């Protein structure tokens, strides 16, 4: 599943940009809307249009190619514009709404939770909401508690929403494209600490299917399951464990909802020991969800209790020394894996 063909290396952020560009070329009903997705509104004639392309540059350059009819800067009105994206999706458009930081979900939650997620069901299948919400998640940039949350569990919990969490440039481009083409509302969770990471990424158009995890590494002694940035932390932990002669298999979840149960259970069946790594807070998170799945459908596969490595039950602290202690580290994952093998 993982690509082994050497291609060019681009930044995660560039991969998202390419996917957006590719989909906007392909389908004229795809529009992008959000705060400063271009920037400099009303000043295009002064050369100030597209001043930002988003705070992380994910949407930079789209204005020049597609114009302000398809790249819409919005006021700071999440309930308004995310709701407008829902309404536009339900009436024939295919909008991509940029929730700049997932922490701003609070301002928009009704439109996501009670509208986007439920219109199809409530209307007996007679509506569809083919929208995408892309949002920056995660800690690691010292952005403090209101700009560092993960929160994908909130979305996964809601029937009607789909949720993906790419972990590198390759999966970012493929999953972003898939999300846009999907006829259901899809939340694309982009970890902000991954934006500056380069990865192999094909130049051509491609789509990765939702509902599929991938193996980052094959192994036989223990399964490390990670998502978003934590998939890379698991990969790093596996390298550490290799030095101790422990051969870890790494599963990158990628699609949180729908979830690839088969890949997860197959790996646990192979190694019989599992550590699930989730940057979220410990209560009701993805790790807990996956642990319950394994305990239920994979009970006979296990030779040891299921272990979860997560953030603590606390908001994300600001001070770098505290934030580093907060985020699950490769060392902590490796130590947990070693305990399972003692």
């Amino acid at each position: 599943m993982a690509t082994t063909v050497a291609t060019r290396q681009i930044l995660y952020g560039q991969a998202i940009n390419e996917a957006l560009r590719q989909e906007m070329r392909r389908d004229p009903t795809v529009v992008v809307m959000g705060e400063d997705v271009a920037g400099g509104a009303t000043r295009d004639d002064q050369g100030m249009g597209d001043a930002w392309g988003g705070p992380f540059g994910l949407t930079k350059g789209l204005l020049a190619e597609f114009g302000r009819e398809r790249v819409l800067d919005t006021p700071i009105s999440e309930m308004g514009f995310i709701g407008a994206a829902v309404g536009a999706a339900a009436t024939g458009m295919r909008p991509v709404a940029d929730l700049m930081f997932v922490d701003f979900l609070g301002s928009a939650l009704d439109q996501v939770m009670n509208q986007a997620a439920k219109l199809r069901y409530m209307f007996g299948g007679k509506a569809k909401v083919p929208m995408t919400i892309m949002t920056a998640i995660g800690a690691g940039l010292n952005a403090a508690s209101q700009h560092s949350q993960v929160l994908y569990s909130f979305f996964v919990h809601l029937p009607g929403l789909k949720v993906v969490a790419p972990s590198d440039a390759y999966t970012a481009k493929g999953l972003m494209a898939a999300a846009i083409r999907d006829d259901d509302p899809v939340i694309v969770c982009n970890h902000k600490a991954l934006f500056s990471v380069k990865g192999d990424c094909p130049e051509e158009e491609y789509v990765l299917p939702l509902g599929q995890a991938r193996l980052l590494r094959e192994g036989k002694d223990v399964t490390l399951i990670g998502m978003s940035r934590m998939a890379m932390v698991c990969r790093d932990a596996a390298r550490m464990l290799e030095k101790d002669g422990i051969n870890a298999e790494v599963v990158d979840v990628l699609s949180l909802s729908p979830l690839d149960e088969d890949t997860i259970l197959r790996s646990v069946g192979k190694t019989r020991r599992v550590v699930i790594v989730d940057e979220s807070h410990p209560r009701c998170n993805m790790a807990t969800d996956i642990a319950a799945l394994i305990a239920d459908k994979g009970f006979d596969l296990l030779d040891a209790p299921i272990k979860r490595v997560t953030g603590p039950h606390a908001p994300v602290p600001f001070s770098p020394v505290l934030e580093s202690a907060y985020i699950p580290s490769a060392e902590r994952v490796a130590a947990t894996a070693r305990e399972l093998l003692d």
Partner: protein
Amino acid sequence: MELSREKLLWMYERMRLIRDFEDRIAGLFAAGELPGFLHFYAGEEAVAVGVCAHLNPDDFITSTHRGHGHCIAKGVDVNQMMAELYGRATGACKGKGGSMHIADVDKGMLGANGIVGGGAPLAAGAGLTAKYNKRGQVAVCFFGDGANNQGAFHEAANLAAIWKLPVIFVCENNGYAEATPVNYATSVQDIAARASAYNIPGLVVDGQDVFAVYEAAGEAVRRARAGEGPTLLECKTYRYYGHFSGDPGGYRSEEEINEAKRRDCLERFKRQVLDRGLLTQAELDEIDRRSKEAIEQAVAFAKSSPLPSPEEVTTDVYVRYP
């Protein structure tokens, strides 16, 4: 409008301290000494100071992500502020909040806020407490032109109006919500015009003139203390730095920034008080000197302060748990 010498000295001292604090940390950030993200208030000093000049320690303010000016105007200790930016245990929030969350509740400073518009309902709530206490306290909500389009602001304003809460909504219209100009994002030319939607008074104020702010805020605070309800003040101002430390810019011209600097609130204050013989150059120079000293002391204090210990990650989540 008669202002005592004491008040004039206080105004200049606070504005100077804010400016020096912001300029200093901009340099520290550029040198890689400060983690995270900073949002500089330089240029907007007259608003925080002109308003807070009317406030007592038991009055409340809510703030924004651009909160250092509000903190200093409300009397938060600059040593603790600097230590917070350095993420030290001696910081105002023990290093756990950072720039966007500096608070000092005992001084009525209900925190900088990382959520645009997040402070508005909080200010309404503080107004509710103030009304309940019947001691004449007021709550000031500082918010920006960006926040004026957030639902939270509208709900808070309406709530304050129907309950006649002692809240002063102070909009710091600096012309930009991040990289987006206000004339694009906001349906009205003057945000103060939105006050009529809540049936409350609304005024446009020159936010780069501390005396203009002081006068308008004085009346709004008087109204609030007298139980006459909320007011919306729109202070037209300007931020000299970008939205945040690391803002790539490109959405406003150098000429525009320089034009705003020609109306600098500190320079205008000095000219006015000197022309009218209210303060002397020597007094102003002394304040300048002491301000620089205070900032350097704050940096030294921060740098020599201990880091928080990792156990602090899980403290202060609850008062009691389970």
